[in-house]
């Protein structure tokens, strides 16, 4: 009997200790804010989110990571206003028939292994992208690519006004194809022209080292360590504790910790991204009824989600293209602005009524139940989903949130395995929204436009899209893009939640950290130790 009482005593003591420990941990986390260490002048540490399993630039969207890590470069790049600027190409021109583009490749560029960059290698590299990833053909199709001295000549099948912007997409990162014989790019990383080269890479942690042959000035750091910290909260804490010098995308819940703190610097801009829920409107789906879609959209109080729940770190959504890009955001009319009374009326009209009094509407014995696919590596996505779920519940929708791993989302989107699917998408990866609008809403005939897995199809939209794809005049392009957006809004094609401000936060021991609207350029040669 005695031993049992002793045991009990021990149990009590250990329980008490566990409590004290937990309290200590919480207190410890709170105190972390003031301990930021000084940065190392030789090693830069950057906390990022990473979705890439390998550094093969043609695999999925992994090229983005290759560019973000300061490894790969393209022929062109975007500046802070999304104008196309020279990068590995110093200039370009298009022939009078608008079909032949000539890019002059810089003479002084070397790959990290010392090989000189020639137009031949650029040609081989672009052809390699076409060969390995079908997404390349959704940008442009060519009759011929040839090298003439240091000039790269591309002859396209039809006039393509966006050509220089297409080549800025990280899919077209220039790699040293000659080096591929003795090297597995996906395991050891590609040979590129950026300021850093791969020392080691696993998904969770990359280490880059100085590229000794860099062409554009002195590389400031010997080494860049890039831990992948997908959890936004942990990322913020790593920055506070000095484990990293720079962190990308600090979440709304944490940004106040860095604002007004003189140990950190925040660079925040309106991004080109849009957070939207794709609505699966394929025949047979509940959302194939335009009235139900309209009810769904106007039942969501997007002003409150963005201004209150996300503390204004997002701009309330309305149209496909965010207001940071000048494509008529203010003149577009959203027929489905927040109006719960109208939403209820629309559902009544569509025949959805709550007959059994459980708060959920039915029609023909079927519940108004929708599957909402969400991933949570971006902090705002589950928040939007739950807020919408809560608002729509009041209207008689039963929204089932299905949290899945990010790697599954792309496939589910393509196959249409959802009613709603949330995404945070960049709208102008080629400089303007043409590709974005085409990918997600141009009619998908037998998988020729795979990203549109929602079943959306509108002949007027396809026709206007066709016009846009060959239009060179800037003003006319703008008018067409506005027209396209209005069609989507009138059709209730998707639910546009909001537009993120994106940020990069750095400790003041580091200088030159900048977030550009196009989020391909995180680690650049301009990031230096602060003096």
């Amino acid at each position, binding site marked *: 009997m005695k031993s049992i009482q002793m045991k009990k005593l021990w149990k009590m003591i250990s329980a008490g200790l*566990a409590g004290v420990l937990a309290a200590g941990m919480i207190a410890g986390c709170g105190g972390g804010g003031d301990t930021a260490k000084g940065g190392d002048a030789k090693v830069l540490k950057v906390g990022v989110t990473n979705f890439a399993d390998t550094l093969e630039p043609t695999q999925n969207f992994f090229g983005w990571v290759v560019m973000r890590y300061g490894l790969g470069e393209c022929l062109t790049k975007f500046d802070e206003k999304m104008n196309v600027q020279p990068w590995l190409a110093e200039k370009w021109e298009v022939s009078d028939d608008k079909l032949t583009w000539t890019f002059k490749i810089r003479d002084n560029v070397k790959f990290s292994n010392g090989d000189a960059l020639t137009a031949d290698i650029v040609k081989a590299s672009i052809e390699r992208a076409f060969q390995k990833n079908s997404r390349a053909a959704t940008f442009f199709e060519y009759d011929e690519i040839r090298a003439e001295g240091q000039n790269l000549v591309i002859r396209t099948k039809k006039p393509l006004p966006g050509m220089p912007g297409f080549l800025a997409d990280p899919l077209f990162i220039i790699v040293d194809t000659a080096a591929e014989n003795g090297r597995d790019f996906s395991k050891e990383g590609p040979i590129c022209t950026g300021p850093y080269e791969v020392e080691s890479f696993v998904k969770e942690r990359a280490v880059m080292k100085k590229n000794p042959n860099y062409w554009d000035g002195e590389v400031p750091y010997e080494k860049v360590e890039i831990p992948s910290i997908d959890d936004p909260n942990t990322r*913020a*804490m790593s920055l506070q504790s000095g484990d990293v010098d720079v962190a990308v995308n600090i*979440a709304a819940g944490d940004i106040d910790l860095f604002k007004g703190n003189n140990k950190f610097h925040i660079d925040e801009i309106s991004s080109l991204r849009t957070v939207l829920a794709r609505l699966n409107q394929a025949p047979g789906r509940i959302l194939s009824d335009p009235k139900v879609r309209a009810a769904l959209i106007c039942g969501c109080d997007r002003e409150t989600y963005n201004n209150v*729940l996300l503390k204004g770190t997002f701009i309330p959504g309305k149209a496909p293209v965010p207001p940071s890009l000048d494509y008529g955001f203010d003149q577009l009319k959203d027929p489905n602005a927040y109006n719960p009374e109208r939403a209820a009326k629309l559902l009544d009209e569509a025949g959805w009524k709550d007959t059994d009094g459980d708060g959920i509407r039915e029609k023909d014995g079927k519940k108004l139940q929708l599957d909402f696919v969400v991933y*949570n590596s971006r902090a705002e996505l589950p928040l939007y989903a*739950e807020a919408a*779920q809560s608002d729509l519940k009041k209207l008689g929708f039963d929204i089932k949130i299905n949290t899945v791993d990010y790697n599954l989302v792309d496939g589910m989107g393509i196959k249409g395995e959802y009613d709603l699917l949330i995404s945070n998408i960049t709208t102008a990866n080629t400089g303007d929204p043409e590709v974005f609008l085409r990918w997600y809403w141009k009619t998908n005939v037998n998988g020729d436009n795979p990203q549109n897995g929602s079943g959306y199809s509108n002949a007027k939209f396809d026709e206007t899209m066709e016009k846009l794809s060959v239009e060179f005049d800037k003003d006319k392009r703008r008018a067409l893009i506005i027209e396209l957006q209005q069609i989507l809004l009138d059709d209730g094609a998707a639910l546009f939640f909001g537009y993120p401000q994106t940020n990069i936060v750095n400790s003041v021991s580091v200088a030159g950290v900048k977030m550009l609207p196009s989020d391909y350029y995180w680690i650049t040669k301009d990031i230096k130790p602060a003096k």
Partner: protein
Amino acid sequence: MEKKMEFIRQHRLFTFYTVLVLLIVLVALFAPYLTPQDPMEGNMKNVLQTPSSEHLLGTDKLGRDTLSRIIAGTQVSLFMTICLVVLLAVVGLLVGIASGYFGGKVEMVLMRFADMMLAFPGVVLAIAIAGILGGSVVNTILALLVVGWAKYARLVRSLVIKLRHNDFILAAQVNGTRTRDILWRHVLPNILPMVVITGAMDIGTMMMEIAGLSFLGFGAQPPTPEWGLMLNEGRQYIQTAPWLMIYPGLAIFIVVAIFNLWGDSLRDVLDPRQE
């Protein structure tokens, strides 16, 4: 009455813990009437409010009252845990009695299965199963059931084997009692106390495992007010709104501690070997 008082006097601690357990059960049963505000619906204009007289434990990211959610969570957590433990005991009893009493090939097959399950690290396997099935309350219980039954089956089997060759069983067999009646009248009553004790002592652990799966996103899905899920939601605001983690954490801590202590004292009361 006299006897009851005597029992209470002899088992003071047990009585005390039982009262606490009953309190928790009452909170769970009457949760819908006890919540000061609607745990599912909040005012989105009032998010992340610090604890105040209006919201004693503050509000969460959608402006829902944290206290109400914790109270409602008692129901969810307790319901899931009790379901799980009862299922574990039932499956364990069926498998254990079958293999213990009949032996032979039945035992071989069932016990090798049990060995297989025991060879895996439990929580990891549960995560894998819940991950494949997809997150939901039912799937969490299923996942933990698949992982946990083997322990109960083994326990019951060893108890049954010990009993099987006792004289009273043999006597019943000689008298021609039907197998069903032997199992029901003679075997079950003799092993039930041990199973009940094991189950009671497991309640706390199971509650933790359920909360753990929910925390990882494999259990209850939003907007269910489940403690593990609430912890996960609060995690994003650990520095700016710590009450979102502290109070659900405290709720788990208190309830699990009470059930563990109660399980211990129940063993002291029921287990004849301790006398």
